[in-house]
């Protein structure tokens, strides 16, 4: 009884304290609540949107909520909430909102002003993965941003992406202060030491002249410019100056200097379904060309084409993903530039050294994935081969748990005979 009385007193006190605010909500105390919002503007440094364009500046969900203010009576509490969300989304120093009289009497225009942070430092883990076949892979970077300039220093030890395990450092400088937000410049430097699998070394020995030797270290300097042709279509143009340090049969360096071009299209579409649940579609398409010629002083002459189409449909907790990729290399490409399957991206569950220990110069791959909340199931199919060789299509299936970038999956290659699954866990982007 004593506790019941105490609970009543506490809840009564809380209710009373609540009632103090109940009658004095910020929005109730603002005389401007009588006006109707007819325009919402979000502006930052050098940009401004009235939400009518399909700009990628603001995420679809937030843009929808901002647009929903139009036609309603003003509620400054909601404006504060939206300003806080814009601040988070833009990592801004401050987001303020102010009201202006609109052209129509008794209507107001809401303007959100995004003030970018003066400078910040952040550390990110770009890869952290354990594969039961390849062991640990990890990469991380520390970035400094001052106004429109960013500098990134990274460390990596990656046994997953390429045929070799590469361990080393990277540095990148990026600037967007070129007088236009349509162009940004990027300068990247990488230096790696390589470790090779026995299967790869044996394959190189068995097929001399197909690709490069097993180099001991690799350095790359890559200046690029990214140009926004017409939103959301971007073109990246640049050059890659890659130097390979070989130890056998005698110490020497090879150069793999190439022109690099990437055309990318990304579009996000939102729609309200029949049951009023929101659906979202993401389309990401890209084409990359690398052309290494003697003109650039390259010891390797080749042209690599790679294209990919990624589609994602989200409806509530359901997600459907389809990823189609393909690539063709003509000429003699060094090992780092050959296609690899049987890693955490292509033909998951297969061992990359079983599929093609030197990588291939042809790749076709399709991955279909279904996710419900954190649960995922996927089916990968594709082939990796060298031109002139027979094509052998492979399949794999897997299940796992994925929450944001954290993933734990077990993948099974589909083949006759024994089943040897691969466990993958870590942060996969």
């Amino acid at each position: 009884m004593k506790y019941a009385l105490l609970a009543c007193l506490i809840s009564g006190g809380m209710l009373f304290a609540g009632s103090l605010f109940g009658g004095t909500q910020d929005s109730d105390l603002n005389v401007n609540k009588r006006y109707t919002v007819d325009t919402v503007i979000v502006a930052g440094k050098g940009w401004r949107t009235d939400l009518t364009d399909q700009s990628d500046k603001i995420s679809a969900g937030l843009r929808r909520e901002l647009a929903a203010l139009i036609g309603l009576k003003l509620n400054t509490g909601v404006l504060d909430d939206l300003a806080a969300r814009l601040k988070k989304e833009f990592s801004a120093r401050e987001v303020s909102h102010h009201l202006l009289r609109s052209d129509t009497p008794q209507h107001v225009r809401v303007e959100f002003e995004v003030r970018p942070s003066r400078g910040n430092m952040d550390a990110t883990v770009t890869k952290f993965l354990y594969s039961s076949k390849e062991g640990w892979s990890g990469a991380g970077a520390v970035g400094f941003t001052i106004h429109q300039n960013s500098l990134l220093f990274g460390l990596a030890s990656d046994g997953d992406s390429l045929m070799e395990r590469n361990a080393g450092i990277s540095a990148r400088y990026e600037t967007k202060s070129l007088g236009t937000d349509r162009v940004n410049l990027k300068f990247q430097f990488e230096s790696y030491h390589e470790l090779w699998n026995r299967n790869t070394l044996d394959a190189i020995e068995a097929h001399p002249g197909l690709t490069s030797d097993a180099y001991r270290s690799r350095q790359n300097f890559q200046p690029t410019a990214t140009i926004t042709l017409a939103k959301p279509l971007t073109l990246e143009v640049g050059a890659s100056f890659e130097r390979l340090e070989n130890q056998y049969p005698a110490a020497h360096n090879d150069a793999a200097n190439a022109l690099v071009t990437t055309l990318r299209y990304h579009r996000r579409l939102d729609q309200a379904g029949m049951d009023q649940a929101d659906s979202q579609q993401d389309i990401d398409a890209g084409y990359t060309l690398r052309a290494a010629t003697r003109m650039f002083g390259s010891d390797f002459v080749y042209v690599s084409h790679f294209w990919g189409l990624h589609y994602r449909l989200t409806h509530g907790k359901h997600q459907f993903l389809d990823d189609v990729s393909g690539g063709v290399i003509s000429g003699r490409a060094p090992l780092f530039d050959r296609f690899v399957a049987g890693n955490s991206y292509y033909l998951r569950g297969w061992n990359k050294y079983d599929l093609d220990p030197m990588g291939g110069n042809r790749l076709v791959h399709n991955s279909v994935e279904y996710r419900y909340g954190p649960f995922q199931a996927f089916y990968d199919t594709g082939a990796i081969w060298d031109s002139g060789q027979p094509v052998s299509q492979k399949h794999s299936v897997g299940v796992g748990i994925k929450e944001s970038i954290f993933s734990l999956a077990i993948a099974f290659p589909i083949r006759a005979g024994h089943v040897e699954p691969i466990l993958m866990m870590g942060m996969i982007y």
Partner: protein
Amino acid sequence: MEQPSRGNRISRRSWLLAGLATPLFSVRAAEPLEVKYDGDNLHLSAPTLHFLIGKPLERLKDGAPVAYVAQVTLFGDDHVTPIKRGQGRFVVSFALWEEKFFVTQLGTQAVPSRSVEGLTAAAAEVWCLDSLAVSTVGLEPNAYYWLRFELRTADQKELANLTEQPVVSFRRIVEFFSQRPKAGEPRWEPLERRLRLSDLPRMAGRGRNG
């Protein structure tokens, strides 16, 4: 030779200085805190104090409400012992189309909130100060007291902290005024004056003893 004495005559220079100083004395004579007595309560006005200015006014004209917390303290003649305290929490907003101010005095457990709208800046300031009456029950008419008026803007969080108790806590109000204002926020120095009830001008027709 003995110089002739000027005696008690006032020199021309003294007259000139006195003439120049006269307007200064009249400025000094205008009290920053004017107090009237209605027989029950003390009523304040501060003709030289303007708080709907500067950054708060910018925020108001951007359509945002601005909260003010005011405190009136009556000390004994020792200037240390507080005898009476009154406080007011005001939320001001500015109607963009009518270009007039809307003021709400937040209520307490005993007193409900009250609002007024359609005011000019000066009228809104007067309304706020006029709402801060200090009861004179128990005060000696011929004793001297010190009256202090303090004012600060408050953000939403601060206002919530001050009102989260069913009864407004004076301790919290005192703590609030002892904090430094946030960067960019205006700071008004406390206004003080020494007074005696029997010396104060009476407001006609108000109060039990008026």
